C-alpha cells in the first residue's frame, strides 16, 4: 500500500494515516520523516530496537508531544481528525484514541472499578449535568452511573479482574495492572487503541492471555490496535501489519512474513541487540541471507 498521503480521503481510507512525521528535541531527531498507516480492524505493530523512536511516535499520536513536522489523520465514525492540531486530552475525548503506557500509569490509590469509571469521565460528566444535577441527586445520573458500572464489569470480566474490582489498583500484581490498564483504555470506547509494550514483564501464560485479549478486541470490537512490542512471539503471532523503525526512520513496513525476512530489519536488530532477541527462524534466515539490499523496503502486497 502506498504511504504517500492524499488530502481527500477515499472511501476505504485507513483508520490512521501518519505522514512525514518528524519529531526533534533540540538537536536530536527522535523520529525522522516516518509515514505509515493503520487500518480499521487490524493490529498494527511498531517494532524496532531500543531508542528507535517508537514511543515518541506514540506520544505524538496521543498529543503528549506536538510533532515538529507531519500530519496525523484519524478517520473514524464519519469524522476526520488532524491529531497534531489537537490538545492531548482532546485526542482521547474527541478522536477516541486511547493508550496505555510503557511504565503502567494507573490511579494506584483508587479502586479497580474507580479506575474504570474515571475512564468514562466525559460521558458521566454530561450525565451528571457538569455535577450540578448529580449533586442534587437527579435520577438520570444514577442511571448513567449504573450503565458505566456495567460497562466496567464487562471489561473486568474480559480481563478476569471482576473479583478484584474493589481492591486498590496499586495493590494488584504487575500482570493484572497491565490488564487493568488495557481494560481502562477500552472503557473510553476508543476507535484506536495504542498499546506501549503491553507484554513487558508478563510471564508466558499472561502473554498468551494478552494475545487472546488483543485478538478479541480487534475481532469483536472491530477497532484498530497500534502496538509497540519487543516480544517477537506476540508481534509475529497477532499482528496484521508491522512497521519497523530504526534510528527514527522507517526501514520496513508490511506483513509479518515480509518483515521477518527483510534484510534491513535483520541487520538493524543484530546490529543493536543480541541475536536471541529474534525468533530462531529469523536468526536462521540471517545465516542464509548474507547479501545486502537497500533499506526502507516496503511490502508491495
Amino acid at each position, binding site marked *: 500500500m502506498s504511504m504517500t498521503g492524499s488530502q481527500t480521503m477515499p472511501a476505504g481510507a485507513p483508520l490512521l494515516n501518519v505522514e512525514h512525521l518528524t519529531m526533534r528535541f533540540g538537536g536530536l531527531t527522535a523520529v525522522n520523516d516516518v509515514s505509515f498507516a493503520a487500518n480499521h480492524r487490524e493490529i498494527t505493530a511498531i517494532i524496532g530496537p531500543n531508542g528507535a523512536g517508537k514511543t515518541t511516535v506514540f506520544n505524538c499520536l*496521543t*498529543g*503528549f508531544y506536538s510533532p515538529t513536522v507531519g500530519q496525523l489523520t484519524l478517520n473514524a465514525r464519519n469524522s476526520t481528525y488532524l491529531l497534531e492540531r489537537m490538545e*492531548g*486530552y*482532546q*485526542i*482521547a*475525548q*474527541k478522536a477516541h484514541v*486511547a*493508550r496505555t*503506557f510503557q511504565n503502567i*500509569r*494507573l*490511579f*494506584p*490509590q*483508587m*479502586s479497580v*472499578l*474507580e*479506575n474504570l*469509571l*474515571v*475512564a*468514562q*469521565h*466525559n460521558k*458521566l*460528566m454530561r*450525565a*451528571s449535568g*457538569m*455535577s450540578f444535577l*448529580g*449533586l442534587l*441527586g437527579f435520577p438520570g*445520573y*444514577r442511571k448513567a*452511573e*449504573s450503565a458505566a*458500572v456495567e460497562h*466496567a*464489569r464487562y471489561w*473486568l470480566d474480559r480481563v478476569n479482574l*471482576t*473479583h478484584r*474490582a*474493589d481492591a486498590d489498583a496499586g495493590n494488584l500484581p504487575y500482570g493484572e495492572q497491565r490488564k487493568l490498564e488495557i481494560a*481502562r*483504555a477500552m472503557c*473510553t470506547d476508543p476507535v484506536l487503541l495504542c498499546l506501549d509494550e503491553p507484554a513487558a514483564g508478563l510471564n508466558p501464560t499472561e502473554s498468551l492471555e494478552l494475545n487472546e485479549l488483543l485478538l478479541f478486541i480487534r475481532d469483536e470490537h472491530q477497532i484498530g490496535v497500534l502496538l509497540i512490542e519487543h516480544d517477537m512471539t506476540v508481534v509475529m503471532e497477532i499482528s496484521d501489519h508491522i512497521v519497523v523503525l530504526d534510528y527514527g526512520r522507517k526501514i520496513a513496513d508490511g506483513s509479518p512474513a515480509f518483515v521477518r525476512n527483510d534484510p534491513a530489519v535483520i541487520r538493524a536488530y543484530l546490529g543493536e541487540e543480541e541475536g536471541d532477541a529474534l525468533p530462531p527462524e529469523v536468526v536462521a534466515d540471517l545465516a542464509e541471507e548474507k547479501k545486502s539490499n537497500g533499506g526502507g523496503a516496503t511490502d508491495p502486497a
Partner: protein
Amino acid sequence: MAVDTSDKPTGIAAADIPAMLKDAAISALLALALAIPLFGFRVSSLGTGQGFGLEQRWDLVAVTVAAVFVGRLILMPALRAVSNWLRERRGQRSAEATETIQTVLRFAKLVLLIKLLVAAALWPAFPWVDRWLLDLGILVLTYVMLGWGLNIVVGLAGLLDLGYVAFYAVGAYSYALLAIHFDLGFWQCLPLAGAFAAFFGIILGFPVLRLRGDYLAIVTLGFGEIIRVILLNWYEVTKGPDGISGIPRPTFFGLPFKRNPEEGVTSFHQYFDLDFASTHRIIFLYYVILILALITNFFTLRMRKLPLGRAWEALREDEIACRSLGINPRNTKLTAFAIGAMFAGFGGSFFATRQGFISPESFTFIESAIILAIVVLGGMGSQLGVVLAAIFLIGMTEFFRELEQFRMLAFGAGMVAIMVWRPRGLLAHRDPTIRLNDTKRGGGA
C-alpha cells in the same frame, strides 16, 4: 547506599553495642555542631543604649548534646524494634484478618463520627461549656470548615495551595466592604463573598494550574502575599493596617442580637420573649459555622461520588494518565481550586461577622500553613482526619497560648515527622467511592 553508619538498620543484638555507641557519638557530634552557634550564644541587649552582646549558654549545649546521645542510643533502637515488631505482626496477618480489621475500623470510625456529630450539635447545651469553650468551639469549627475546603484542593485534587488564606481574606473583606458600603446583610453577602473568592480562584488558577505541582505551591504562596500586601497598602479601601471595624453582626432572620435595638426593630430576645443574654449571639454564631461546615462536608462527600470528584482524585494520582483518558486537566483542576476558594470565602465572611473587625494581620502565611497542617496531619482526603486534626491543633493552641513559639516549633516538627512517618497523613486509609461486589454500598450517588 547509606553514607553514614547511622542509616543501617541495626537490631539490638549485643554485638552491635560498639556500633550503636559509635552511631550515637556521631549524632552527638552533629548535635554539637548544630548547637554551638545558636544554643551556645545568644545575641542579647546589654541594656538600653549599650548595644548588643553575647550571652553564653554552654550548659544548654551540654544538655542538648547529652540528650541527643542518650536518645540516639536508647530511643532509636527501641523505636526500631517496636516498628519491626509491628511490621512482622502485620505480615503475619492473613488477608481475611486484614479485611476484618478494616471492617472493624470502618465501624469504629462511624461510631466516632456519630459521637462527634452529636457532641458538636449539643455543644452549647453542655453545662460545663462556658463562654470561652463556646468561642473555642466556633474557632475549631471555623478551622474544620477551612480544612474541609482546602481538603478539596490538596487532599482530593492534589494541588498544593499555600495561599489558601488569600481566599479567606477575599471573603472576609468582601463581606466587610459590601456590608458597610451597600448595607447588605450577612446572608446576602455570604454567597457573594463565596462567588468573589471563587472568582479570584479562577483568575489565579487559570494561568498557573498548568504548572508543575511545586511551582503551583510557590505561586499560590506569592499570591497570598500579594493579597496581604495590597490589603496593607490600599488604604482608601481597606484602611490598611488599621483594618475595618464596625462590621455588621449577623441577624437571626432579620432579628438582631441587641439589648436595645433601634426604634421599630424587634431584637431576638424580645421576639422570643427571653431575657437578654450576650451568649445568644455566640450560640447562634456557633450553629451558623456548624451548618456551614456541615454543608462543606456534605458537598465534598457528594462530589467524591460524582465523576468530577473522581477526576480530581485521578488527577492527584496521575495527571498524564488522566490526559490519556480525555480528561481536561486544567478545567478539572480549576473547578477544585475555585470550589476550595469559595468555601474559604464563606469561612472568611463568617470570620468577619464574628469578629466585627478585620485587618491584614489575620491573613498571614502562617494561617495558610495551619490549615494545610490540619489537612496533612489528618490524612489528605480524609474528612474525619480534618476534624480530629483541627480539634487537636487548635485546641492545643488555645490551651497553651503562652507557649506560642513552642507550639509553632512543634507544629513544624510535626509536619516533618508525619511526612516521614506517614506521607499521606494519619488517617490516610481511603475507602472506594463505589463498590462492585458489595451491593449494600454500591449504587453511587
